[in-house]
């Protein structure tokens, strides 16, 4: 039967301590490192949680011309330059403005869809639709 020696115990404790210090130190240090964390789910909060927006989301999904899962929406939306900027932006007001500007660019470029009669930009229709998918997958 193998014995658990004192040396082994101290070695294990040192490994754990080193790991803890390394992790804690890294966390502390990384707090000062600027990073770009795309957060598609938080962008969905831009789409209002109003009955009309939910209805548009449902109808947009029914259209069948939009992606039917969140990765698909994330991929499509991040192709839009101002949406990419919005994903990297922390200030909610600026994020909202960027999304609105992207919608305006969509309209100008005729990237529009008609959902429940509303003439919408593809971006906002996608946001409303993706929001409908989030509760099931998040």
């Amino acid at each position: 039967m193998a014995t658990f020696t004192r040396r082994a115990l101290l070695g294990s404790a040192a490994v754990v301590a080193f790991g803890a210090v390394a992790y804690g130190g890294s966390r502390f240090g990384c707090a000062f490192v600027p990073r770009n964390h795309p957060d598609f789910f938080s962008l969905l909060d831009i789409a209002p949680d109003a009955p009309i927006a939910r209805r548009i989301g449902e109808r947009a999904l029914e259209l069948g011309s939009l992606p039917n899962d969140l990765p698909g929406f994330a991929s499509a939306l991040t192709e839009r330059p101002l949406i990419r900027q919005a994903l990297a932006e922390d200030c909610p007001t600026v994020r909202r403005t960027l999304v609105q500007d992207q919608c305006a660019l969509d309209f100008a470029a005729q990237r529009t869809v008609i959902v429940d009669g509303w003439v919408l930009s593809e971006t906002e229709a996608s946001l409303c639709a993706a929001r409908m998918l989030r509760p099931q997958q998040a």
Partner: protein
Amino acid sequence: MISDLRSGPPPREIVGDVCIVGTGPAGISLALELSKKGRRVVLLEGGGPVYEQDSQDLYRGQVTGHHHIDTANSRLRQFGGTSGHWTGMCAPLDPLDFEPRNDVPHHGWPITRADLDPFYARAQNYLDLGPFKYDFADWAAKLPAKPLPLDPGKVFTDVYQQSPPTRFAEKFHDAIRDDARIDCWLHANLTDIVLRDGSDVVESMTVSTLEGAQTMVRAKTFVIACGGIENARILLNSRKQRSAGIGNENDLVGRYYTDHMTIETSTVMFNEGVDTALYPEEIQVGGALLALGLKIHPDLVRRLHLNNNSAFLVAQHDSEIYDDDFRNYGWIAFSTMLKTFSRGHVPDRFAEHYCDVVDDLGAVATGVYRHAVRKVAPSSRASVFKIRQDAEQSPNPDSRVTLIEEKDALGFNRIALNWRITSDDLLKLRRTHEVIGAAIGAAGIGRLQIGIPETPDPEVAYSGYHHMGTTRMHADPRQGVVDADCRVHSVRNLYMAGSSTFTTGGCANPTLTVTALAIRLADHLAVTV
């Protein structure tokens, strides 16, 4: 001079240089213009000086096509014609409306907008309008607010002018009565157009009262100016010498009936703070009362194969105090009387106005109450609007006026009106709204919800009561009843005046164009007669 064929024995014959049938905006403008040029005019009116049920009954007919229309109530058979109840919106047709278009069959007049411009300018006075300026830029500096910040290459602000509205009977009665060169006869219903034997020349017209008093009118030239439906009915009924009806050698009389599709289904929601002040209300500026709408740029209309349209914003207020749904005949009569009394005069046709008010007393009381409350209630600016328009239809030979077996008191066959609204007309309007919605979205000022489904339902469309196209103008006799001078192709001295000559309907209310064409015809006849 104004005489009444019902009073006393009829004259053996009535003689003039030009005989005009009809005393609406076309007939009266034409008569006054010809008189100014020294021509002797016989002006015939089938009705009397005021509304008379037995005369109005002659306009009754069947509706066999789209049913949101009628044949009798929309017209007035009396001195002054339908100007007795028009609403007064005026704009010229657009240059685009006159152009032949490869993508729209049968589109295009044999004249251009530029040909008509001088006459539009002269027509403004007849209709008590401001200067002949219909470009937004002409008015922009004087307006109290900015237009919506839309891309003008796609959607721009369009200008209409509002006539009081001019009632031709009231405004021009005395001028015609006192004009020695105008011989106007009331209750003189046209019952026959007589061609000189074997010729293409009208020799005379027979006129009659409903009681049978009859006489003959001789003139060098004859003009029929009885409106978009009646002009066709008269020609189709003139079968004694031409079996299909005068001018109908190519089966065109009555065809191409077009109207404006009055539709109010789509909705615009503007963002908070968007200044829409210019649009929902009429604006008094520079001697004119303006109404502003949204119009698609003509290049885009051509590129997207649309029909022409001008969209007006109708505010949807939360409070009914700001609703204008009380504005019916009673309110208009009340408003007219109030304005006239305030100037120290008794209104013309006081009894008619008074009875209109009595009939609609509820609406008048509502209007008075709401106007009073608006003075003290906090102002309410709507952010939700319905889009209302009188939308153009594509020319359609199957949309038509035909005769039916039933006859009226004068022995004329009554008409069936088969107004066609096609899915294509409605889908073009849907696409128009889509363009407006995209422009509003691109400007970041709101969103539009289209109220015309992808599978269109004609039930959303109502007649604008703008009867047009039934004796359309075209250089080719196989494609039109009258030529560029409004002369019936197959008759040397017979002319048509009014909206029946329109080759396309555009989206402008027709009265200004009717009047301009009448003035143009007067200039032409003054040279040729």
